[in-house]
């Protein structure tokens, strides 16, 4: 039983670490603001969830578990809204997403 729980928590922790590192790589590698925020928001939500889930499995059924679950709930409520506010503010100030093909080019390609 303990082995299964340990293995599960390791899997969760590793997944969380992978998502966190991939988010960090994404922030540096993506060329444009909106895709960077996308990469960061993955770290905000799913990475946090996996790491907390791994820690919950490790801590067992104690008060720490309740606190961790509350922390996950708080982060899931707030960080997507924070990402939304960031992107909304950027869009309102006139930063347009850089698309590789604009609508005109796509329409031309469709015609030709």
């Amino acid at each position, binding site marked *: 039983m303990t082995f299964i729980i340990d293995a599960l928590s390791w899997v969760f922790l590793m997944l969380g670490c992978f998502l966190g590192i991939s988010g960090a790589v994404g922030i540096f590698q993506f060329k444009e603001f909106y895709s960077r925020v996308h990469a960061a928001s993955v770290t905000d939500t799913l990475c946090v969830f996996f790491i907390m889930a791994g820690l919950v499995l490790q801590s067992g059924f104690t008060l720490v578990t309740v606190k961790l679950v509350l922390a996950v709930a708080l982060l899931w*409520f*707030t960080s997507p*809204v924070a990402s*939304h*506010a960031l992107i*909304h503010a950027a869009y309102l100030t006139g930063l347009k997403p850089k698309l590789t093909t604009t609508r005109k080019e796509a329409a031309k390609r469709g015609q030709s």
Partner: protein
Amino acid sequence: MSNINLLIDIVLLTMLVFTTVAIIRLRSLFAIVMLSGVYSLLSANIFVILDAVDVAFTEAAVGAGISTVLMLATIGITGYEQKKRRNHNWIAPLTVVLITGAVLVYGTLDMPAFTNPNDPIHLHVAPRYINDSPTEIGIPNMVTSVLASYRGYDTMGEVIVVFAALIGVLSLLGIREKSSAPLHAEPPARPILQVMAKFMIPYIILFSLYVQFHGDFGPGGGFQAGVIFSVAIILYTLTFSQQDAMALVPPRVLKRFAAIGVLIYGGTGVVSMFKGGNFLDYNVLVDDPLHGQHYGILIIEFGVGLTVACVMMLIFFAFISRGDKNP
């Protein structure tokens, strides 16, 4: 185990250094404000590692939270870019910095060696607090007993400094109260943010009250609670509008309450004098000295919380009502 701790220390301190260098080199004030918030959060982490949870709490709430918001409100008035300076003369500033640094280093030569267990501070005051606090004050959180009871004068000075800051800001800037009616835009201007803020604000206020009245037992106290409470109102101001917030907590009332908080603190001292003790001597407040300490700490923490919350909200209002745009 100690290796992991060392690694965490090194990583945190390295990040602190990088943040500092970035703050010095950047020109965008917005990024600098954000980075100083990051700096405060990192130092809060370091305080947690040093087992100074109360200090870490204060640093996270005040340094990373409210001062970032206040600085953002300030650069909303001043502009987002640092001005470029012409005819850059670096000799005079460098001399001043060098002389000041040399004086500071010379001043530290007299201080006892760092982490020496035979320092006066470890022999004289600290053991007395640690040994006598459970019997004299009788509350589990020793930081609160030092802050509110042993060092009650210092804390009163801090509260008065906060109040004086408010007086300074109000006499320099003042709050421009808009006479227009509160805006209730239909449909709401920022639906997602407003729904989320409505959801979060009760929990933030509940948490601030917990921090306020649980400060005797766990980390927390009047300063942190006041800041967290004012953050709830500031969130309301940012997501809804300035007029709505000023209708909810009118600045006129806030000014009175900020003064009342200081009065509660000083009044407790005066009452203890009338009861035959020294100023801020809680032992004489009720018959049992221990209970007197508990009551005294609870009352003065309430005064601190009231003043800090009102002052933070008022300073934020003063800054935000100067900006040309409605936030």
